[in-house]
């Protein structure tokens, strides 16, 4: 199935006092993969400054910049059009996708869950369903119960979390089951904020799954980044000099586009 998705992602940061020497790193340009083709995108940053683009070791596009001069407002807008398909993604997994990462260290409970899921190779789709069911039965979706620093083991013990935690726990269990697994993040149609999901490598291909919504992560997902865990996939990081507090407002819009949108020049 081929789906055209338009996205628009804006962030506005207002500082309570002027700041300077503001360095930032953003991952808000969708990745090019066999299953996801970026047709066009633009990224605008204000105040204006040179924005450099590169690809990190995981394959995510990173946009970096520096605002030396004083400012009290910082904003960026990322927009684009992506075509998603069912094409299998078969890039050979880096070895580190099979090893624990700082936010996905194993725990005995995760090991026993991994052992209870049966053999992934026999029926990959079924296995991933079982994985998602196992995680969903142990975690209830509760915004505010965890933070960006919460580990998979902590979330599991708490029994609560958000999409980041559902993804971390799933990734940890998959690796314990002997499967390479990576954390993915980006946009999802209907979600007003960024979303996190998982990709598990079984029988030579990466299967995208969304443990928070218990469904395959296909057709309405735009992937911005993937890595071992949340820390490898920061959508936005920044530091600045100045005594100021920040008020941040973010809006994400993702909607299905039609062929006419794709054909018109951008």
């Amino acid at each position, binding site marked *: 199935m081929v789906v055209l998705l338009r996205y628009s992602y804006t962030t506005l940061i207002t500082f309570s006092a002027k700041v300077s020497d503001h*360095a930032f790193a953003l991952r808000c340009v969708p990745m090019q993969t066999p299953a996801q083709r970026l047709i066009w995108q633009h990224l605008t940053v204000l105040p204006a400054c040179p924005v450099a683009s590169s690809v990190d070791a995981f394959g995510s596009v990173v946009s970096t910049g*520096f605002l030396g001069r004083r400012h009290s407002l910082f904003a960026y807008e990322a927009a684009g059009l992506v075509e998603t398909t069912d094409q299998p993604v078969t890039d050979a997994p*880096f070895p580190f996708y*099979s090893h624990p990462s700082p936010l996905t260290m194993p725990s005995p409970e995760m090991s026993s869950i991994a052992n209870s899921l049966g053999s992934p190779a026999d029926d990959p789709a079924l296995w991933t369903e079982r994985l998602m069911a196992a995680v969903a039965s142990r975690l209830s979706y509760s915004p505010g119960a965890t933070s960006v620093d919460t580990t998979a083991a902590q979330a599991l013990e708490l029994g609560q979390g958000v999409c980041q935690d559902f993804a971390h726990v799933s990734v940890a269990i998959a690796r314990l089951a002997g499967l390479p697994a990576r954390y993915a993040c980006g946009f999802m149609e209907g979600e007003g904020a960024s979303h996190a999901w998982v990709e598990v490598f079984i029988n030579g291909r990466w299967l995208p799954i969304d443990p928070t919504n218990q469904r395959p992560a296909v057709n309405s997902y735009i992937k911005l980044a993937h890595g*071992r865990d949340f820390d490898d996939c920061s959508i936005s990081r920044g530091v600045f000099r100045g005594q100021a507090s920040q008020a941040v407002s973010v809006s994400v819009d993702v909607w299905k586009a039609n062929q006419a949108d794709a054909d018109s020049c951008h």
Partner: protein
Amino acid sequence: MTDDSIYAKLLLQRDAVNKWMERCGVRFGIYKNGSFKEQIFPFDAIPRVISAADWQTLSRGLAQRVMALNAFLKDVYTKRSIIRDGIVPADFVFSSKGYLPQCEGIIPPADVFSHISGIDLVQADDGTWFVLEDNLRVPSGASYPLIARDLTRKVSPETFADASVLDNRDYASLLRRVLDDVNVSSGLEVVLTPGRYNSAFFEHSYLAEKAGVVLAFPDDIFVEDDLVYYKGLLNKKERVGVIYRRISDEFMDPMTFEKSSLLGIPNVFSAYRKGNVAIVNAFGNGVADDKGIYYFVPKMVKYYLGEEPILRNAPTYLPIFPDDYKYVIDNLPTLVIKDVAEAGGYGVMFGRDMSAERLDQVRAMIKADPRRWIAQEVINFIDLDIMDGDSTVKRKSDFRAFVLSGKNTEVWPSGLTRFTRDPKSFVVNSSQGGGFKDTWVLAK
């Protein structure tokens, strides 16, 4: 110590040497009870003396070892052949805290990862040298014997006129040559210091002085458009080509590594990945100086260079290998057991200090988690003489040799010898008291 030793005249001048040390501010800082204390780094005038014959072997062995380590680092972050060929188990590499996935695929200028390698050695009482540890991240200490030599020559020129000691005062120019070799776009060369309250600040500033390069603090540098710049006056900026950073990987870039670091240069990793700046030493070297990887270094020499290793590791056993496991269990009372896990808390344990009950406990721990432990033979180091008032006493000491790699690999004909004050202590470490000696390599 005999009265006709080659350093006898120098010892008579040790008060003068200490005055010079004070005058030049040769300090080392330590954090004790939450406060930062700086003191003149205690210097013992009796040098460690290495014979010309020993040095022949040592220097060839050190150069060989560092070349193999650099080859390993390139391999780990690119083809991973040594893992595919079954020499080093994948687990050891990918569960190492020093392995940084962000470095995958990055080959630094001139293929050099560890430009300044500090290799720690000990000499056993039968004269054999063993490598204790490789330090490939931010090895410290060359500045102390460097300045000590300068001062001791001034104070006792006749000592050096009579004895033929290889000159070591070229360290800074060796360092400079390495920086020149990897400098990208003939940019500025800087030593990056975290600041005044770092234990080794003296070294940062002294090496910058002697190498003729800029001493920069984190706030002096910024990255714009993935290019690295030094902040000049009146809003000018100058392109930086190489950074000799005295800050560890995790604090170097809050955009890539530890988010809360205030010591780093945001986005410097991005500039490095693009090849726009050289970083000395490169990111990610921790995978090669990891306690668990040490065991494999002699195998690296064979694998990458096709040579027999000249330098020996302290005999080490990894219980995850069945033969080693059997040996360790059978010989536990004669071995020293080390915990590879960072948060372990067990540190270093000597079998000879354990009761029968404790020995069994340790055997059980090893059986339960063999990957976590390494065992080594206990080496009786030669103790060195140190001055104690007008007489001497013997104390434990180690030796850190420095190997510099740019377009070529050079072994510095000297090194840092540290000793403990406490006669019962096996821990030779600048932060625990103790002091340093110069290291003389004889020309003949």
